[in-house]
Each structure stands twice: as structure tokens, then as C-alpha cells.
């Protein structure tokens, strides 16, 4: 095991522009995968985690964004992390498994023995090396990363049952309708496969093609939603591969006890930025800022400050604050649980709590930008889009402000278009 022939390839699904409107208004200005969490683009976190995989040969990013949106990022991250990263653009939706299959030639180029599949908008510790080891001991077609969640939140996810001894995946259904819930473990959206996954995906495609060409489909069958309009090359990992193959000794689970969240909304991106900052505290504390208010600003808890940002020594920053490139934080400013994006100017004595301040925005003196801090609520984290100006002494609470607006009167619980 682990010889020089055992090359591993990682595939990260980054999604695309019109698919997710839930990340607005931030996605109006930047592709979600490039939005910074704890000072690094969202997709950097799984990419960095992939570096810990032994014998990693290549990382592919697969998505619907235009190539030029990722060209710069991909070449700089390849250089910076010294790992080959390529972006592959999907021409049309193929489903989560179909996308993998669509690029099988590139993925299999270096004849990898194992293929990781990760979703970019998942926030977790990515225990990939441990997953690989577990997978090799199970000797199945694939291993799924799972996590225990509270019974209440489990209901939003698929039903997943695994054998407690062998860790085999016994049962899997997407968002069941019955009220009795038998399992509290959910699919984290991180998988590892052996190359025979491609055979399984092709099997689903052919089966669907055969059914479609069978003219004697009864009119009732033809109306069933499942059969109605899925093209043969549209294959979903969960419904079309995991569900039917559960219980057939093909798939296994590996459980993580660390944190896990999905980054679907701007509010959640703030929460996940905090989770990654906490992770840095454990694994790379030198990335975090420190200061006691004498020579440098007072830092409380986990804070990231980009080297080019300027923070006045009388400011107090944190916990859970992240300040991006060229931001200027003035005297007496207080920042708590927030993400301050590039080129933002925060003037003297302003207060920002539970908010995301967009690129190039300007926050006036003695103004206050805050929210309740409920990361799941629609207006629980105040979001200011690109180039928003909040004038002196103005208060913006539990609101979302779209790009290029000037706030000259105070607002609460509003969306400013």
C-alpha cells in the first residue's frame, strides 16, 4: 500500500453562476468558490487539504463558470501551494456523478488508483489521508465522509444508515418524507472512489438510454417525474449510484467528529470563516494576528489580518474577524465576528458586529453596522455589497445592501436594492 504506483487525483466541484442564487448579493461580484473565508478563497481550503493526501498527482476543479474567471486563480494557487490544479468547464449539467464521468479521460490520465470527489461549498476539516486509509481497508468502490448531527437538523438531509461494525453503507435515500428518522448521520459531500466508479456511472447511463429507446413505455410510466426528462448522461451521485448500490458491499462510510457545515448563504460563510479561523488556531497559529493594543491593535480570539491591511493601534479586533488586502481600519474601531473585504475603509470609532463588508466599501465615523448574528436567518448577518458607503453616524442593522449604494439614513431589517 502507498507505493509509488498509487497515485491519487482529487476533483472539487465548484458549481456555477446561475445555479446558486442563495449566495447573493456577494455572488453578484465574485464567484462563490473564490469568496474568502479566514482570509483565503473558499476553494483554497479543500485544495490545501488535498495537499495532505499521500501521492497526490493532480487536482481538478470542475464547474460552470467561464474559464477566464478561474484562469488567474488556478495558475497562482498552483504556484503558491506547489500542487498542479486545473479548471475544467462543464458544457451542460450532467449531475454530480455525470460531471465526474464527463471528464474521466482527464481524471484517468495519470492512471490514479483513487479519486477524491469534494464539494467546494462544504466547510470541514477534510480528513482526507485518514479517509484514504480507511477506504483501502474496506476495499469497496467508494467511501463517503459522514458526520453525526442533531436529530432536528438531520431532517434537512438524506437518510443514511451504515453498519456499525463493518462501516458498510446499508441504506441511503435523499430527503425522505416519512417522519420516523432512523439515522442521525449525514453525507458530508466528500467521497473517495476507485476507478470502477466510472463503470457504475456508465451503467446508469446505458440503463437510462435503453429505457428511453423502449417505445413500449406505458403512458403512465412516461408521466412519472423520475423518468420524464433526465437525459441519459445526467447521473446524480446520491440518487442514481449510492441509493441503488447501498447494501451491496460497494460503499462504506468514514465518520468525522470534527466540524461540518454547508456554505450556501453569506450568513453561513461568516460562520464558516470563524470555523476555519479556529482551525488555524489549532494547526497554523502563525497565520493568525496577535496584539495587545500597545504597538498593534488589541486582538481578541481568532483574527486574520492580511499583511497589506492597515489597522490603527487603538482599534480592537475580534473574535472571529477577518480583514482582507489593503483594508484600512481607523482609530477606535471595534470589529466583532465579521469579514472585511479588500480595499474597505472603516473610519474612526465605527463598530461592525456580525457583518460582511464588501470590497471597496466605506464605513463612516461613529457609524454602526451590525446584526443579530443568527447565521441561518435571512437578515441575521448584515451584508454590504461592493462599494457601499455608510455615512458618518448612520446605523445599519439586520440588513442587506446591494452594491454601489450610499446609506445616509439608518435602517433596520431591510434589503436595499
Amino acid at each position, binding site marked *: 500500500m502507498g507505493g509509488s504506483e498509487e497515485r491519487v487525483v482529487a476533483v472539487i466541484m465548484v458549481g456555477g453562476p*446561475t445555479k446558486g*442564487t442563495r449566495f*447573493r*448579493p456577494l455572488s*453578484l461580484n465574485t464567484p462563490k468558490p473564490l469568496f474568502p473565508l479566514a482570509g483565503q478563497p473558499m476553494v483554497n481550503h479543500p485544495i490545501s487539504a488535498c495537499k495532505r493526501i499521500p501521492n497526490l498527482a493532480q487536482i481538478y476543479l470542475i464547474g460552470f463558470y467561464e474559464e477566464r474567471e478561474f484562469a488567474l486563480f488556478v495558475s497562482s494557487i498552483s504556484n503558491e501551494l506547489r500542487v498542479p490544479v486545473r479548471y475544467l468547464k462543464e458544457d451542460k449539467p450532467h449531475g454530480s456523478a455525470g460531471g465526474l464521468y464527463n471528464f474521466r479521460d482527464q481524471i484517468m490520465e495519470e492512471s490514479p488508483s483513487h479519486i477524491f470527489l469534494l464539494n467546494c461549498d462544504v466547510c470541514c476539516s477534510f480528513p482526507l489521508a485518514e479517509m484514504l486509509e480507511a477506504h483501502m481497508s474496506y476495499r469497496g468502490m467508494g467511501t463517503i465522509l459522514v458526520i453525526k448531527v442533531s436529530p432536528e437538523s438531520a431532517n434537512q438531509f438524506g437518510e443514511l444508515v451504515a453498519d456499525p461494525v463493518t462501516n458498510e453503507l446499508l441504506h441511503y435515500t435523499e430527503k425522505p418524507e416519512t417522519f420516523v428518522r432512523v439515522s442521525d448521520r449525514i453525507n458530508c459531500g466528500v467521497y473517495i472512489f476507485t476507478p470502477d466508479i466510472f463503470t457504475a456511472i456508465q451503467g446508469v447511463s446505458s440503463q437510462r438510454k435503453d429505457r428511453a429507446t423502449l417505445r413500449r413505455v406505458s403512458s403512465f410510466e412516461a408521466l412519472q417525474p423520475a423518468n420524464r426528462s433526465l437525459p441519459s448522461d445526467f447521473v446524480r451521485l446520491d440518487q442514481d449510484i449510492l441509493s441503488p448500490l447501498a447494501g451491496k458491499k460497494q460503499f462504506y462510510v468514514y465518520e468525522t467528529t470534527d466540524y461540518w457545515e454547508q456554505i450556501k448563504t453569506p450568513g453561513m460563510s461568516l460562520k464558516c470563516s470563524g470555523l476555519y479561523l479556529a482551525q488555524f488556531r489549532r494547526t497554523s497559529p502563525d497565520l493568525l494576528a496577535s496584539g495587545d493594543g500597545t504597538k498593534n491593535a488589541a486582538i481578541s480570539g481568532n483574527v486574520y489580518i492580511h499583511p497589506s491591511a492597515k489597522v490603527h493601534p487603538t482599534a480592537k479586533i475580534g473574535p472571529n474577524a477577518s480583514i482582507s488586502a489593503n483594508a484600512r481600519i481607523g482609530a477606535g474601531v471595534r470589529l466583532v465576528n465579521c469579514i472585511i473585504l479588500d480595499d474597505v475603509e472603516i473610519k474612526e470609532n465605527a463598530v461592525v458586529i456580525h457583518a460582511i463588508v464588501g470590497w471597496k466599501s466605506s464605513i463612516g465615523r461613529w457609524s454602526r453596522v451590525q446584526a443579530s448574528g443568527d447565521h441561518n436567518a435571512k437578515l441575521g448577518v448584515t451584508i454590504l455589497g461592493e462599494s457601499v458607503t455608510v455615512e458618518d453616524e448612520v446605523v445599519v442593522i439586520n440588513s*442587506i445592501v*446591494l*452594491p*454601489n*449604494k450610499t446609506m445616509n439614513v439608518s435602517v433596520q431589517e431591510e*434589503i436595499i*436594492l
Partner: protein
Amino acid sequence: MKALILVGGFGTRLRPLTLSVPKPLVDFGNKPMILHQIEALKAIGVTEVVLAINYQPEVMMNFLKDFEAKLGIKITCSQETEPLGTAGPLALARDKLIDDSGEPFFVLNSDVISEYPLKDMIEFHKSHGGEASIMVTKVDEPSKYGVVIMEESTGKVERFVEKPKIFVGNKINAGIYLLNPSVLDRIELRPTSIEKEVFPKIAAEKKLYAMVLSGFWMDIGQPKDYITGLRLYLDSLRKQSSPLLASGTNIIGNVLVDETAKIGEGCLIGPDVAIGPGCVVESGVRLSRCTVMRGVRIKKHACVSGSIIGWHSTVGQWARAENMTILGEDVHVGDEVYSNGGVVLPHKEIKSSILKPEIVM
């Protein structure tokens, strides 16, 4: 003769429509807003139009190339690198506006829709011999705007009063000017307001004259005024007996229907409706006081009033959209859904009713 159209910035008040196209290209009365102005200028012999913009010049220029050829008028962009206010852009475009002829040039505000009596304005300008002419319009609530105080008989402007608290007059600046090239010597290349800095100086020298705009005027930079503006515009088409207005047993009042749009059986359309190119209005639909943009499908038995339906959207069967519902591009309202003032950003599906005005992102 030359003209400058002040296009300005982001058009945030017309979101979500301006999330898809820059404001001057948002359709009004079945053609891009700015085309109304360009056509009026072309009609009185303007040969070159300069657009003063600071946002998305490539999108504007791509679009305008088509119209340059079709209309036979030269269209160029003057791009501000920082917002220059309402006078600064004139200084920036100086070289494009002045030629040896010494003729005056027009300046229009791109948010304004009106009758554009530009020929009358040229006559007025010649007859008073002053340096600048501005169009003013009578409004019901002058305190919302800047009021122009002028001598009734000659039109000579005495002064401007911003948002007056007592009644001083009811004529406001309509955003249409005719200026001698010498006005450009008064404007520095920096953020400057024409109403607050330039015109008051010219008025003090008794060289500024105002002409009262007869006919309709509307600043359509926000949805409520856009809908009112459509009513005024269609009304003026009626007064001119325009052949563009539709007629038929299923049409009430003033209605504009593009020739490529299809309307089904048993519909009742109007008053004050504009239906754009490629639209499909299925049978049994009721439309009133609304704009339906290019490529929209309104399904059977649906009802739309007082609303704007953005490009390529659909309104489902038996659905109802009213009370300032604004759908951005590619928004799909499900069957039987009710929207009371929903403002929906592009590329969304609305599957459940919106009972009170709300923004859907």
C-alpha cells in the same frame, strides 16, 4: 449639430432590471430608454450624440453599434473614471461637443421621458440670444425638486431654489438643455453640479432662459414613476394618433403591442400596457397598467396589473402579479401564485405567494 446625454451610473433605483442591463438600455414603451432620446435628437438634425457614462461602456457600445447604422447618427461614449456630477461630464466631452460651427449643443438627462419639443427649443434659444436655455416643467409637488424662478413673459431665469419649504413656484428643471459652446468655458473638469454651480452663475449674468415644456414629462428612474411614465407616453401617442397603438375588441385604452408578440383568445389588455417583442400572452389573460418585456410568456388565465415583467420571464397559469411587482430577467412565477409587490432578482423561481411587498434575492 451635437448632443450629450448624461447617462451616469449604476441605475440602482431601477433594480432588479438594471442588474441585467445598464439603465439606458432598459426598455420603455418597447424600445430602450435611450433610444427615445436619440430618435428625438436625430429627428431635428443632430448628427452626433455623445453618451456620458461611468458604467459598463462595452455593453452600451455593443448595443449602440446596431443603432448607429440603423438610425444614421454617430454615437460615441465619453467615459468618466470618477463620477463627475451633472456638469463635469460636459467638460470631459468638450472636444466632441465643440466644432468650428459654433452651434449650440443639446444636453439631455437619460432618465427623462418627454415630448422633446426640441425644434421649438432651438427657435426659443435663437430668439432670446442668451447663452443657455433650459426646459422646465410644471409639477404638482415642486418641493421634491429644484424650482426655477423665472420672468413669465421672457423666460429669463432669476434664480434656482432647491426643495423649497414655502411655495415659490411650480416649475422645475426638466433636464433638457440647449447650451452655447461658451458654457463649456465655465465648467472645470471635476465633480460639478450644473444646477448648483453653473446655471446660477449664468442666471446672475441674465443669460439663462427657461422654456415651459408643454406635453408630458417624467423621470422614469424608479419603478413607480416608470409605470406612470408609460401612461403619459402612451397618452401622447394617442394624441398624435400613432399607428403604433393597438386596437381590437380585447384592447382597452392605450396599448402598445410589438408586431412579433402573440395574444390569445379571450384576453383583456389595457389600459396603459406595453407588450414587447416575442411575447406570448396566452388565452384568458388580463393585463393592465403594466410592461411586459421581450420574450415573456404570460400563461392562461393570469392577471398582471401595475407591474413590470422583465425579459424572458414567465407568469404561470392563474397567477396574479400586482401592486408594483417587478420581475427581473428570467424569473418564473409558478401556476396559481400571487405576488403583491414582490421585487424579484434575476434567475429565480417563485413557487409560493408573496403576500406583502418584499424583495426576493
